[in-house]
């Protein structure tokens, strides 16, 4: 990128609707797609878009996320100058303060951004699965001479009440925000991706911090305030695959989407790779008389049974005569001989014992299997 952009990635979300998937980790750290974690998408997008400096705002159970991100070398962010920094809350003379909202998290790190002296600040969330070239967002932002540009996407009308809806004029200039409206005028939803001029954002963050009634949130406070003040705010419509895996079912669906060869989230696109921390595991071993159909299988798996329409993470043993259908199996699981698994999401390190059966081929439930038992959704 020609003009300096600093990305700030909000990775503090708890994601409680993901149940036991997030009992030990933050939502951005949830495994996805056979070998990734959700945050890999935003991080890889940033690298592939030519962004050199990125701050990761963490707060909730950051251990796994910290060790996953490490020094950022998987995404080529391990730079001598700039690069990736993890930004947890901290204390000063006035005592410590936790991040109270999305905007507050950025406010508390104004010094970090000032040090890098960028022209633009890109706010990202670590919760979503999509491939986007942020350079395009910047191009539009500059063309419009905007103060802020928000990436939006069309959602089904029935879902509009779950999103922040954005109404625009014919030039895509934003004229109204509706936060989770019951009767939306529009089905364009904010993706939580904002390109700001740093000068403008800085000013509004400081004002927002002084406002005792503010909940220090971009969607609820900063953006409406800027609109009130007549700032130039534009929407940019994103038209590719995007998924907010907010529930177990949508998590399962997003994984299944990868098995569709027509899915635009093409993992095999060498020009827009998704990077992740590499485990350096041996190749997968597919045994005699095994069956694998329409499935993604990762390294160090040992498949002796039958795997259909499923996503297998790494180091999984599928014993002889075990059957896996329509399922997502996270790393280090063992499916014993004769077991049958349907429509399931199985968390790490679980063994499914000999002959046990989860779900049936045709039922509509999703089964979340963890060491706390099976949840049905």
């Amino acid at each position, binding site marked *: 990128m020609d003009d300096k952009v600093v990305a700030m990635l909000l990775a503090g979300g708890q994601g409680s609707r993901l149940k036991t998937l997030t009992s030990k980790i933050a939502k951005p750290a949830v495994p996805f797609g056979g070998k990734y974690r959700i945050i890999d998408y935003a991080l890889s997008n940033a690298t592939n878009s030519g962004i050199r400096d990125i701050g990761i705002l963490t707060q909730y159970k950051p251990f796994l996320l910290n060790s996953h991100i490490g020094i950022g070398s998987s995404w080529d962010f391990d730079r001598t100058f700039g690069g990736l920094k993890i930004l947890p809350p901290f204390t000063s003379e006035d005592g410590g303060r936790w991040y109270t909202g999305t905007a507050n998290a950025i406010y508390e790190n104004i010094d970090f951004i000032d040090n890098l002296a960028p022209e633009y600040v890109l706010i990202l969330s670590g919760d979503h699965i999509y491939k986007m070239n942020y350079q395009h967002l910047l191009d539009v932002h500059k063309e419009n001479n905007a103060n802020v540009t928000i990436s939006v996407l069309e959602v089904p009308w029935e879902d509009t009440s779950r999103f922040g809806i954005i109404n625009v004029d014919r030039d895509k200039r934003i004229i109204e925000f509706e936060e989770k409206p019951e009767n939306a005028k529009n089905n364009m939803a904010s993706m939580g991706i904002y390109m700001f001029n740093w000068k403008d954002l800085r000013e509004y963050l400081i004002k927002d911090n002084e406002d005792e009634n503010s909940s220090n949130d971009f969607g609820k406070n900063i953006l409406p305030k800027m609109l009130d003040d007549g700032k130039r705010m534009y929407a940019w419509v994103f038209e590719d695959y995007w998924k907010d895996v907010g529930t177990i079912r949508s998590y399962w669906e997003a994984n299944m989407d990868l*098995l569709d060869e027509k899915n635009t989230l093409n993992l095999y696109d060498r020009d827009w*790779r*998704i990077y992740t921390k590499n485990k*350096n595991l041996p190749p997968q*071993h*597919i045994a005699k008389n095994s069956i694998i159909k*329409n499935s993604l299988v*990762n390294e160090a798996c040992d498949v002796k049974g039958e795997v259909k329409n499923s996503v297998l993470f790494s180091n999984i043993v599928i014993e002889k005569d075990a059957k896996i259908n329509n399922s997502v199996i996270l790393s280090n699981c063992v499916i014993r001989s004769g077991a049958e698994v349907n429509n399931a999401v199985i968390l790490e390190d679980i063994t499914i014992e000999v002959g046990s059966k989860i779900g049936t081929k045709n039922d509509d439930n999703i089964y979340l299997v963890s060491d706390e038992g099976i949840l049905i959704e």
Partner: protein
Amino acid sequence: MDSCLGIITTGDIDFNFGVLCNHRPVYMLPFGGRYRLVDFAISNMVNHNLSTIALYTGEKINSTMDHLGNGEPWDLNRRFSGLFLFAPMVEKDQGIPLGDISQFCSTEEFFNRVKEENILVRHPNYLAKVNLTEAYKYFIDSEADITLIYHKSKDTEGKLVNCNKMYLDEESNLIDIGINLGTEETFNHFIRMAFLKKDVFLRLVKESREKGDPKFLIDAISQYRGKLKINAYEFKGHVESIKDLKSYYDANLNLLKEDVSKEVFYEGGQVFTKTKDEPSTYYTDESNVENSLVANGCIIKGKVENSIIFRGVKVGENAIVKNSIIMQKTQIQDGAIVVNSIIDKSATISEKVNIAGSSAMPYIVERYRHITND
């Protein structure tokens, strides 16, 4: 093993591998779906806490620099130790002198600088996951000047003819070392791995260099038997001696045996290599894969049997791959048939092309080649 330096020295046997070694030294041969031969030697040493490792590179150094770079996959990108690469030193008007002794001599300064007092020397074309911690303890406890590592190899088919054979006394001291000509089925197979005291190593190297002969460290060791305390440590695991195309092919396919792949890949430490960010491998509804090792990033639509498939390979619809090694990013297009073959990286076997070697001698396709029916 804080006080042991690792040395990987390389033989001059590139010419045994035909086109596979036109652009790479033997130790850079792809192996086991995602590795290079040298990865096994380096990883084994790193897994036993050797923190300074020197590789004497082949002449074709560019692939070595690209793959090993700063040693990062082995955590050898250290400031004060780590991985050292030494390219062959060319002598004026004489080219590169024969043997490793002259190369050790030309890097004497390095040996003087490092703190380590002992040296493990090994050849990367011998695959053996030795418990180095235990072997080193044996070397230290027995107060030997040199400990050679050997394997009691059984060879009924003459595959190990011309390997080094050792004679030992009851206390495992070296009596003699020579060439196996197959007179016995089972013999003490010296797997070209040895611990030496650093001062002994330097003495051998310098004295040999001054005399002008022998040219190779291993010959020097053999000449010093009797003068030094040289004993032997038995390795009981799986050994591969990769000395030509056939042994290279067999060693790869041996990984399809469950006990071999357990030992080589899982037991006693991971094997590290340069990572490539490939996604998982995708098997279509029509795919049919049996008894194969498949790396990540592949798209398998056809039939694969008894084969080693490297990263990013595509096997098209109705294509058949059998008893073969298919290297990185090669495409086997729809309906092509590949049997008993080794296809080097980024090659293309076009639609409906049939190629087949014999199991005694695989068919080889050079890298970047495009094989068509025309």
